[in-house]
């Protein structure tokens, strides 16, 4: 078991009332799974991903990641955990505009204090693999959306995470680019990376081997492919 959510509740107070963002969510994820989370806007997809990615807190429930109880860990230990095991991909790519493709991909390694030679080798491999060697010195603004997202994925994978979290990864892309990204995800999943993606699109969701439907923060049902 890679991670386990047990009865997670997350709410905000609005006018003295609790508004639930996540309402009694339980979820088990095994290594090597490819899970799609579906639901309309505001259903809590992103919040759930943020909670899984340890970027966001929750009020109640248990979260066990890789046999560590995340809910009782300190900030520092949590940061160490996600640095080690989790990679993020965003709808808006979120590349750093002032850094080149090469430097963007290198960033997570800098925060892991990798050696310079090691970094060079890893980034070179990644550029090679995604076929973007020729673009390594370009800035994000000089790339198409699909290419930017490729860089975003490359950056998410550079630290060899076990779990890849993707929040609407194809949301800003046209259908052809979107399809390419999904094919890439499938490939990565087959290589052993666990993936959880949030998406609006039925066809994208279908790439996953399990689909979780959310509405108003609650898990409605799940289907397996």
């Amino acid at each position: 078991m890679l991670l386990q959510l047990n009865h997670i509740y997350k709410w905000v107070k609005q006018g003295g009332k609790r508004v639930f963002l996540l309402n009694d969510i339980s979820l088990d994820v095994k290594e090597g799974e490819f899970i799609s989370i579906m639901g309309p806007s505001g259903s809590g997809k992103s919040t759930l991903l943020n909670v899984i990615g340890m970027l966001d807190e929750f009020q109640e429930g248990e979260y066990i990641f890789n046999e560590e109880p995340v809910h009782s860990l300190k900030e520092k230990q949590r940061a160490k955990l996600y640095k080690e095991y989790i990679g993020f991909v965003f709808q808006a790519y979120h590349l750093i505009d002032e850094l080149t493709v090469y430097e963007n991909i290198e960033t997570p390694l800098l925060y892991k204090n990798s050696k310079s030679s090691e970094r060079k080798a890893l980034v070179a491999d990644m550029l090679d693999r995604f076929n973007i060697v020729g673009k390594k010195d370009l800035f994000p603004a000089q790339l198409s959306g699909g290419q930017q997202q490729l860089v975003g994925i490359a950056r998410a994978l550079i630290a060899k995470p076990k779990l890849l979290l993707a929040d609407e990864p194809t949301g800003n892309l046209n259908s052809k680019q979107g399809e390419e990204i999904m094919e890439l995800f499938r490939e990565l999943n087959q290589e052993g990376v666990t993936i959880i993606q949030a998406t609006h699109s039925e066809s994208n969701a279908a790439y996953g081997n399990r689909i979780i439907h959310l509405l108003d923060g609650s898990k409605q049902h799940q289907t397996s492919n």
Partner: protein
Amino acid sequence: MLRNYIKIAWRNLLKNKLSGIITIGGLAIGLTACTLILFYVAHERSYDSFHADSDRMYTVEAQVNMGGDTIYMNAMNATVGALIENASPSVFSSLRLKDEYKPVILTNTQQPGTRFSEKDFSYADANFFDFFSFKLLKGSKTEALTKPYSLVLSQDMAKKYFGNQNPIGESISVRKDSTYLFTVTGVMENTPSNSSIHPDFVASLSSMPTMNDYKRDFDSEAFRLGSFPTYLKLKNASDVKTVEKTMQELSTQGNADATDVYSLSLLTDKHLNGRDASNTRYISIFPLIAVLILILALVNYLSLSTARASLRSKEIGVRKVNGASRKSVAFQFYIESTLYVLLAFVVSVVLSVVLKPWFFGILGIEIDAVFFLNPTFLSILAGLLVFTILATGFYPALVMSAFNPVENLRSSRASKMGGVRLRKVCTTVQFVIAIALLVSGIIIHQQLDFVRGVDTGLNRSDVVMLPLQKTMGTNSTPFRNEIEKLSQVTNTAVTQYPIYKGYNMFFVSSEHMPDAIGLPIFAVDDDFFQTLDVNWELKPEDEHYYSKSEQVVINEAAISKFKLGSNPIGESLLFGNSKREIIGVVKDFHFENLDAPINALALFVNSKTQATTNILGKSGGCLFVHFQPDSDVSQLLSQIEAIYTQYDSATPFEYQFLDDAFDAMFRSEERLSQVFNLFIILAMLIAGLGLFALATFSAQQRVKELGVRKVLGASVIQLTTLLSFDFLKLILLAILIASPLAWYFMHLWLQDFNYKTTIHWWVFLGAGTGAMALAILTVSFQAIKAALANPVKSLRTE
């Protein structure tokens, strides 16, 4: 990692060039001002400290009580140094150093045509180069000043008199009463600008006993006052008290009735704490201004960098998601700050070097460029750098590193403006400083205008003073006659010394005041009163009052000082042994600076012929020339100069307008005013730049809001007002805070003046309006630009 940070900081700078330039430029301007002031203050404080033993070098001073007045003297009898050296084992060595009181005429004997009048001519004991750390470039350190009529020149003077020729062994004739021939025995380095002792020529003191003027100074062996400033070097600085005690004993040994109190004062204190502090009067205000400007620049930097950083919240979010800890984000922003500060610092050093001559030119100060390398100054500069880095880096690092990644990433545009309140405080503080400086500057200026316009009891306009030297001699009569013949000249007068530059003192008693009091004396001719419009209180009855001797004219202040009757005509004053009858009283007029009330004064009136031959010719007095108000002054001066050189070719022509001489007494205020002018401009510039950049950010931040409002029908004017108003409120607040502050400090400052201007309410109104206008100008430029933008564009980016 570090390289990554520096790289991204650099690219950010290039991306936001305008705000980057404003941020760095503002800081650089502030640092430049700070550097220049520190340079000046460090220089003033470093006076005489370059001597190797400066911590144990002293001047001998005596406090003398004369008729109730305490007078400080630093000129000792010729034997004083040697006597202390013998009597006290704590004294390591002593030195006598006497300056020529008046300029002397020097000639290189091989080129008899070239004559120069030299002011900085001194006589010193043979151990001069041993005692002080002045470097002797040519000649023997121990022998150069041993023999009578030896002369050491400064480098500049060696060049002036001998060009590139080796001056050693050459002769220079020195013309005083008689002409003396000196042999050049050495060339010394020019004295540094921070030396209170700065002779161009040092002659051997052993020449003096055979010079007519000085023979008598060596007559007495006693330990008492005399005419030689005397320096002591002690073995230990802690021995001061013992040596002072020994001096006191020596004094009473010679004369049991002596009441003079002898003391030692540290040479390095002489410049700042000396009796004539007019140069350094505001030395303590300058660092305060420097600190204010620095605060202004730092606050500006802080406010801009947090604004700039808030545009980068996305980057911070991304970094955090990719594993950056709070510490590493903080570190990144610290590095960035450091980079900016370093850039600003480099710019400011370049600016300081470039602006130095101009800045000190305005202030009328000369400082050797070498002083830039002075270790104290360099360490102050390093301290400034470190402080700036620490102060500027801290807050942005703290704020930026606290950003929450989830919030920052959700909205694709940086919507949360970090530290809005801080920036408001910053803007207010900046304008408080700028406005307070502006108000103070205006008031200082008004005060200067006011004191310059004060009716001092005599006419200062259209009068030029010509100080003559003894070299005029018997030519003084034809000289004066020819000047009076000039068509533009209305009348002339003679005094012993130029006004505001000193006077003789006599110790005088009266019937009701048997204890002698020091009384300033002016020796004048009878044209003095008319030429300078001095009014009579009681005019002498006899038209030719000056023809009889043993008479004196006094001013009103002297009546009360000597407890005379309300009509003192016919009473007499006792000048030592000679009794003089009071024949007239003039209305009080200021004859020294305005700080003190008008002192008592006596005028010895001579007939015109007498005054011209004796005062003007024999002893070198001063001729006052009053000319018609609409005269062509430069033409008049060249005519006078032509006449002058005809009668005295030995001494170069010199002149000073009486009103200039009067204004010169406010030199330290003038200097303060000029520094203020400069810093008002700087403060306004920095504050304006900061406001401009903030307005730009604010417009960027609110681009969507403005778009929506415009779509809903807001006009350009409404939008401009909306954007500007936020800032103008802050300026208004700044005016309210700055006005009482400025009033308070200016009120304090004015307390030092005998004549003070009133602080008008409209000064505050004017300064406030000025600041407001500046703010409206800077803010509305951006606001209008933002308001004019097409809303379709701004809304699409969302």
